[in-house]
């Protein structure tokens, strides 16, 4: 049984079928890159995994637990969606940092709100809560260091470069230790000279515990960082395999055309 199993995901917007039966699976600690031209459904797939969109058909299993199984006309409550999302993290193309908070507060906001809820539920003492808050702070410091932004902790997003903002966003996504971290074209909104720092950070996150799904147009990066590459076209997985297989010896005509065009 794989760590993440995605079965037959379908999603339409009106009459447009964006995803038409997506199946794939990942082992724990694996990194998969999803490549393909614009409009192939890559981003929608990530959004379905993070429940920003609800798939019309399909099933998602994480670590043996079914987190999602589509039934027609299903509506999820806010709470159900929060539970489902807790296993996934998402880094956006446009960073989406909260502009009124410093880099550090961007990291700690959601965990602190979560702690407030827990403190109320478990009737925590003030000392206990202070201790938990300090833990959140320590974790944030640690992650900012990991993305190389310790000295920018007190800066607001508008005072940071695009690359720095995206590194803060990555650290923020890691705060809640998601099982599966998704990246939606993390460098597409950046100037070319800033993509390197972001890609280096993503590469440094690779370890045996962290499963990552990266939608990207950076072919060199996809080739070097991934354990698996998925090529999507017209809402289906056209080809999947190791980077050597997909980049070195593509089987499908569409993959060949896409890779040739990209060179």
């Amino acid at each position, binding site marked *: 049984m794989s760590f993440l199993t995605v079965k037959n995901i379908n999603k339409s917007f009106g009459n447009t079928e964006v995803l038409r039966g997506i199946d794939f699976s990942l082992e724990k600690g694996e990194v998969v890159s999803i490549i393909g031209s614009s409009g192939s459904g890559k981003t929608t797939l990530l959004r379905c995994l993070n429940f920003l969109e609800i798939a019309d058909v399909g099933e998602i299993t994480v670590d043996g637990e079914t987190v999602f199984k589509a039934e027609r006309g299903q509506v999820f409550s806010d709470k159900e969606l929060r539970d489902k999302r807790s296993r996934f993290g998402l880094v956006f193309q446009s960073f989406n940092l909260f502009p009124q908070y410093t880099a550090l507060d961007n990291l700690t906001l959601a965990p602190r*709100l979560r702690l407030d809820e827990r403190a109320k539920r478990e009737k925590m003492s003030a000392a206990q809560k202070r201790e938990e808050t300090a833990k959140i702070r320590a974790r944030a410091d640690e992650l900012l260091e990991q993305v190389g932004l310790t000295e920018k902790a007190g800066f607001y997003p508008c005072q940071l470069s695009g690359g720095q903002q995206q590194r803060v966003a990555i650290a923020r*996504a890691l705060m809640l230790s998601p099982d599966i971290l998704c990246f939606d074209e993390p460098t597409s909104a950046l100037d070319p000279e800033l993509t390197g720092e972001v890609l280096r950070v993503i590469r440094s996150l690779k370890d045996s515990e962290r499963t990552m799904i990266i939608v990207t147009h950076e072919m060199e990066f996809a080739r070097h960082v991934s354990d698996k590459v998925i090529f999507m076209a017209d809402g289906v997985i056209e080809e999947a395999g190791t980077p050597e297989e997909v980049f070195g010896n593509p089987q499908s005509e569409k993959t060949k055309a896409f890779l040739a065009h990209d060179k």
Partner: protein
Amino acid sequence: MALFWEVTVSLLKGFGTTCSIFGLTLVLALPLGLLISFGTMSKFRPIKAVFKTFVWIIRGVPLMLQLFVVFYVPGFVFGMPIASRFVATIIAFVINYACYFSEIYRAGIEAIPVGQTEAGEVLGMTKWQIFRKVIFMQVVKRIIPPMGNEIITLVKDTALARVIAVTEIIWRAEQFTSRALIWPLFYTAVFYLAFVGALTLLFGRAEKKLGYYKV
């Protein structure tokens, strides 16, 4: 000189009433406007339609007419005269201004990129947490200039209360015309100008204070 002080004291009393109408309207209409804006943005169509129609009617009819309606209709139609002219004024003003504010809130909220909400969602925040901790402060920053405009209009609109004989500053000044004194009426401008001047400075400071981040 004695006359000047007599007029000044009388106008100050009236200005107190003016400030009460202004303050109470602001305090009540600001939160009510936010609630109405939620109504006009509701995804549930019937609710949206009801709120949109309400805002259309209130914004489409002169405030002066609304004052008459609130003051006279309960007594004439339902046989329950309204307690006081002042209360009628506050009711009419709060409803009217809440509708104008609601449109400012709506514009402010809709201008916030959907990515802000989505970022909160994937971080496991509740809808209410996202609104309170992420969206609202950005909305406040965006709407200070249009709000300032509307609030300054409110200062001067309080003069409309005169039509149901609320003893605000214009009403007081008019009392002197029976003694063939017209200048107290023009003198009221000084009070309005001073008040609006102070408000302008205040909004400028608020804008500056929120200038540390960009939305």
